[in-house]
């Protein structure tokens, strides 16, 4: 399946059968009542759904708009990632797989995968770029505590994209026993669709909640975009509605500096990690290293559905720089007593940059909490 021209299944032949197997299994299971019931049970009683839609009155007053925060930061593990990992781990179990592999950047998806694997008794291995492994020692320890085996990836730029490369290599060898639990709406078909469906619960809840609170849909929804799973999750149920949808990419040190991760704002079409999408790449098609203060946005590509939503004009994509995100991080902490993840702080920072949002009702997807970022922020403030 494609999103316009984007998406597809650009993988070595050996990975075609496992992807077909996954597609078949997913089709069979997604409307299965038992599966839905079981997943719903774990999302509620294990992960903590539904998450509140919180009216941030202090921040609203400060910025002159009505701001609601979708509190995905309150989920078990501290981020929206658990929505997808519980669902895919359950899917893996239904498929008879005994082992889970995943990539992780900052470690949020790795932690959420390790949790779901522990819960369902699945063996778990997490690939993490060696650089991230060093930067995120606490998350490495968390994953180990949760029973996962962590591999520091030393190839290439030693970050998230290399962790995905390594996970794909593992999968090509072990697909018979192993499910690759990809963490964002990226990769070859059917991954972008599966992850989007499992994250759409964010938008579905938001819709019910805002209708109850406001009696109408919001004027705009803002979410940060790395690979794009939290953004698709909250956007998707609103795509057909008259609501402005704004995706905020990591502008790093500024687009003009070349040190950023804004593949939609500054990238070009390419084929990588199994999908046709937008990538940060050289003129000769080599994938570039990226930079962002938020490790979860530090990826040179973006999910193919976002590429499609950009090209059709349905979603606006903007970039916010490291220092702007940092300011928003501090502002929310001080005004609302909520420490956001640096990723989510990008979405918050955008509110101040867009005059047209003043006076309107805006929902921001607070995709994760900021405890994991305290070290980085402390460093940055020095």
């Amino acid at each position, binding site marked *: 399946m494609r999103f316009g021209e984007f998406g*597809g299944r*650009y993988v070595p032949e050996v990975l075609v059968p496992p992807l077909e197997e996954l597609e078949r299994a997913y089709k069979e299971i997604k409307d299965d009542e038992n599966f839905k019931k079981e997943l719903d049970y774990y999302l509620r009683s294990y992960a903590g759904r539904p998450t509140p839609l919180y009216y941030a009155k202090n921040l609203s007053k400060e910025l002159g708009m009505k701001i609601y925060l979708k509190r995905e930061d309150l989920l078990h593990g501290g981020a929206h990632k658990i929505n997808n990992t519980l669902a895919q781990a359950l899917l893996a179990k239904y498929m008879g797989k005994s082992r889970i592999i995943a990539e992780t950047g900052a470690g949020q998806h790795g932690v959420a995968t390790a949790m779901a694997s522990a819960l369902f008794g699945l063996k778990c291995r997490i690939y993490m770029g060696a650089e991230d492994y060093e930067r995120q020692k606490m998350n490495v320890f968390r994953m180990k505590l949760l029973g996962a085996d962590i591999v520091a990836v030393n190839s290439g730029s030693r970050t998230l994209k290399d962790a995905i490369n390594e996970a794909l290599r593992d999968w090509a060898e072990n697909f018979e026993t192993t499910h690759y639990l990809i963490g964002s709406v990226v990769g070859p078909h059917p991954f972008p669709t599966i992850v989007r469906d499992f994250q759409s619960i964010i938008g579905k809840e938001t819709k019910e909640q805002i209708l109850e609170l406001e009696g109408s849909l919001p004027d705009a929804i803002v979410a940060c975009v790395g690979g794009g799973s939290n953004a698709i999750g909250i956007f998707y149920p609103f795509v057909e509605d008259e609501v402005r949808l704004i995706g905020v990419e990591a502008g790093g040190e500024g687009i003009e500096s070349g040190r950023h991760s804004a593949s939609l704002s500054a990238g070009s079409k390419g084929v990588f990690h199994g999908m046709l999408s937008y990538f940060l790449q050289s003129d000769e098609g080599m*994938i570039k290293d990226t930079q962002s203060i938020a490790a979860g946005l530090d990826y040179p590509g973006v999910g193919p559905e976002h590429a499609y939503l950009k090209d059709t004009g349905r979603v606006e994509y903007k970039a916010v720089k490291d220092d702007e995100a940092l300011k928003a991080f501090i502002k929310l902490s001080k005004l609302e007593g909520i420490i956001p993840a640096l990723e989510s702080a990008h979405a918050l920072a955008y509110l101040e940059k867009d005059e047209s949002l003043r006076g309107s009702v805006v929902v921001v997807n607070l995709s994760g909490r900021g405890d994991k970022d305290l070290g980085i922020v402390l460093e940055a403030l020095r």
Partner: protein
Amino acid sequence: MIEKSLIIFLPACYPDRESTLRFMLKAEADLLEIGIPFSDPIADGVEIQKAYYEALKSFKLCDIFWIAREYKKEMEKRLILMSYYNPIYRYGIKRFVEEAYESGYDALLIVDLPFDEAGEILEVSKDVGIKNVFLAAPNTNNERLKAIDELSEFIYLVSTYGVTGVRKEVSKLTFEALKRTKSICKKPIAVGFGISSREHVRMIFNAGADGVVVGSAVVKIVEKFGRSADEEIKKFVEELKSYQTP
């Protein structure tokens, strides 16, 4: 294109384009397969990953065409160009295929482009006259094998699950896959990935393959001897080719 052929893989511009050309001329392979260095080679093991990483420090796509042009001035043997899809997509599919063919490549193998996604490449290749080679794997079902057999100049059968790289043994899976692929496909079959020694080459030819690809083992020689790997490569290829003598 292949008939009991020993195919030697070399990563382009590792360590530089002149060396690659010399290795090509010196290695008396029946066929050469030249790899375009890529930043993120997901189908390759550590040997080729390292080689590509090194090569990319100075690599330009135009070197690929230079290598083939120079080689064809002195040799008439066939050349296969192996690549990941993105450099080709980025360069422009038509422009790339035309230049590849004009510079001397006879066939194009794109590692991460299964035939279902290859519509445009196939169309352009047909117009230009370059051949296409597709991968098959031990888990490729008969239906897909038939489709590959239709479209591919020969079948490049991946010996096992996983990535390229030197392996100690040839797995049982390889022989089962070769047998089934032979029973389904009319085109010749070359086996690659993990084939590293004279003994491996002998076993695979004896099992009925039409070609054997050796890559990572050669890359390791280049890693060890650098620019002066010529003689070592020549010796290694001679050894592989002598697989029939006891």
